[in-house]
């Protein structure tokens, strides 16, 4: 296993998904999805609810076993790996709902994020970094995560994900239910992480406009397929997105 934050082999994107087919029971959700995320790149995945975005990232993480297709993380095939191994390979995901352990303290939440961190990462040092990034988490370390505001809980979840020393972050609707100013703060941090730590970020967002302000590229999904790939710059020029939803 390669060390975290090490650049993937030349020419290999950080995340390379090809022809992914997946679903739940009799319900096939993804019909051959392909997408790539490079190190230091923020890619947003757009599309209406039920288009298959969450299913796609759950398959990448190994939480859902794909029926066919491949997932490669930094060149290594992880298609059949369990979550534990994918997390250890440097992938962290934040679900759109129920993304903290509400009755556990903020401190415990953060430590749980490191439960499967790649070996050799100093948890204490990581904890300090995360608390630097989100000072509120240091202040409220003893408080149950469920008692914090929505925005603060988002920060807990982001902190938790960062505790695993990821090089690829999969974020499912991180702006859901948050005030615009909070969204701006969080998105700002994401851009910093991509630029400063070369994190690759795959961002699922309904708040398309705001996502495009920090993204480099965008994919649009509909009915389990990618219907459009575009640079964020060109996406930003569109007057609206109704035709894509």
């Amino acid at each position: 296993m390669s060390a975290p934050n090490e650049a993937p082999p030349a020419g290999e994107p950080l995340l390379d998904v090809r022809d992914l087919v997946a679903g739940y029971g009799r319900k096939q959700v993804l019909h051959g999805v392909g997408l790539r995320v490079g190190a230091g790149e923020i890619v947003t995945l757009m599309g209406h609810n039920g288009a298959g975005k969450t299913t796609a990232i759950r398959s990448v993480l190994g939480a859902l076993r794909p029926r066919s297709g491949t997932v490669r993380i930094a060149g290594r095939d992880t298609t059949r790996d369990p979550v534990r191994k994918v997390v250890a390979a440097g992938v962290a995901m934040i679900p759109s709902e129920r993304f903290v352990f509400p009755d556990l303290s903020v401190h415990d939440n953060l430590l749980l994020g490191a439960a499967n961190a790649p070996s050799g990462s100093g948890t204490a040092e990581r904890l300090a970094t995360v608390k630097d990034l989100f000072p509120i988490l240091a202040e409220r370390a003893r408080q149950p995560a469920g008692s914090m505001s929505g925005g603060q809980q988002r920060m807990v979840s982001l902190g938790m994900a960062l505790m695993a020393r990821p090089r690829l972050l999969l974020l499912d609707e991180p702006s859901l239910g948050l005030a615009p100013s909070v969204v701006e703060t969080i998105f700002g941090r994401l851009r910093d992480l991509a630029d400063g730590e070369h994190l690759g970020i795959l961002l699922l967002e309904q708040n398309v406009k705001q996502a495009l302000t920090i993204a480099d590229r965008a994919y649009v999904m509909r009915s389990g397929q990618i219907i459009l790939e575009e640079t964020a710059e060109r996406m930003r020029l569109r007057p609206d997105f109704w035709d894509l939803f």
Partner: protein
Amino acid sequence: MWINYLDQALLLAALAVTVNLLVGYAGQVSVAHAAFAGIGGYTICFLSGEHGWPYLASLGVAILIATAFGIVVGLIALGLPEEFLILMTLAFSLAIIGIFATFDALGGVMGLTGVGGLSLFGLELDSPRDWLVPSAAVLVLVFAVSRRLGESPYGRVLKGVREDTVATRSLGKNTFGYKVGIFAITSGMAGLIGGLYSGWLGQATPAAFGFPLAMAVFAMVIVGGSANLTGSVVAGVALTMIEPVLREGLGVQSSQAALLQLVLYGVLLVLIMIVRPQGLFAERRHEPAAPETGDAPPAEGGTARAVLAPREEAAVAYADAEVVLRAEGLSKRFGGITAAKDITLELRRGTVTALVGPNGAGKTTAFNLLTGTVVPDTGSVVLNGVELVGMRPDLVVRAGLVRTFQDVRLLNRLTCLENVMLAVPGQAGERLGRLFAPGVSRADRAVAAQAMEWLDFVGLADQAATPADALSYGQSKLVSLARALATRGEVLLLDEPASGVDAAWVGTMLEMVAAVRAEGRTVCLVEHNLDVVRELADHTCFMELGEITAAGTIAELTGSARLAEAYFGAQ
């Protein structure tokens, strides 16, 4: 000797049939039915044995007392999640056994013994041979009653409760009433069986009705097959006979044989649960009765009759259509969070209204408030002049407002036809009072024919006999639509009818909803796929943060810069 065992086998088989009706059909677990049998046993030993009552009279009292306890336990625990019912019945068993074992009037740990000289209808019950007749009679009676309850419209509702209580309630069934009813009935039957069991034994002891009996009966039900009464009889007799076979055939000491039998029960139970959880005899599936009218054309795969012959009066102008349902000022707060704020909504006859809006805008909450599954803090919902707020959810459905679910919620182990039949309203066979009157099966054939027409409407008549869990996802969405239609609800709330189905099915779904509108019904749908909304909606309401903030045609809404901002965020 063997006859004595046969008596016991018949009675235990009857108990297994009873418990199977509750566990296998209605899906409600009870550890307490051994204790209910104990109540029956103690009642007859106390009344007939100690106080010389006629046996028949004390059996009657036994049934009454057991039923009464059943109702009380059921009323308390059946509205709560499953684990509380289990807990309640466990604790109830312990308490009853505790009472038996500690009260001097009931003989304490030794129980009430030496009961004899019983007679029934002039029949002296002394030798084991004498007991054969009443034991067999009780088994036949219990079997007949259970079969009538289980394999009938009533049983269909029970199975619905087992598969998905919420979905069954959403088809207009009073699921809590059914649960309490079947719990009480089976308690009463257990009381009767216990009354015979103790009569045959000549005694009632606390140990006889404890967990080993509960476990033995579970073993019979599981081995014989859940929701298969014949299986319970076969397994009941066969498993009871293990002990005499061990003793007589293999020469095991009598004290050891009973224990060895329990060990074997346990082993069998685990094996069956792992290897063949449906039991030796699988649940009976009902072949669909052929529709009585022979002119229903067999639908060829995927082509719906509805699409072939849509009624043309669909083109009612939205503005002219009559208002069928009017919701006003619906608000709901959960803790500090406002889930719905002053929702006012009109649904007009023969039109499709769509609710759109970003994630978490409260669209599903709006459905829940309309259908009464969540009671609003303020506001009213009037359907054809009837106020729906405060009405029980199943009554709301009967008043004509029915919903589908985003995640479909078909009753998996029932066939498509049974799924739709369950939704047909006003079935006499679903009511206890009418169930034992003649004509139920004829009426049920008519219900089947009706259900068949709805399956045909959505183009799935050829799948009538298919179990719901064998359908593709798109097909299951269509069956759930047929089910909603079969309730004859005037207003249909469709929760994401096209989500999760692949492109080929989206078209079918669209045609189908259009056909429903053409039927003159009123549709309100939540949908994220705006293509679907563009295609179908006569009128669209935009929701954000629990509020309806705009309404109009979808073109008007998507033309608004402010709504685009609400949907896609601000830059």
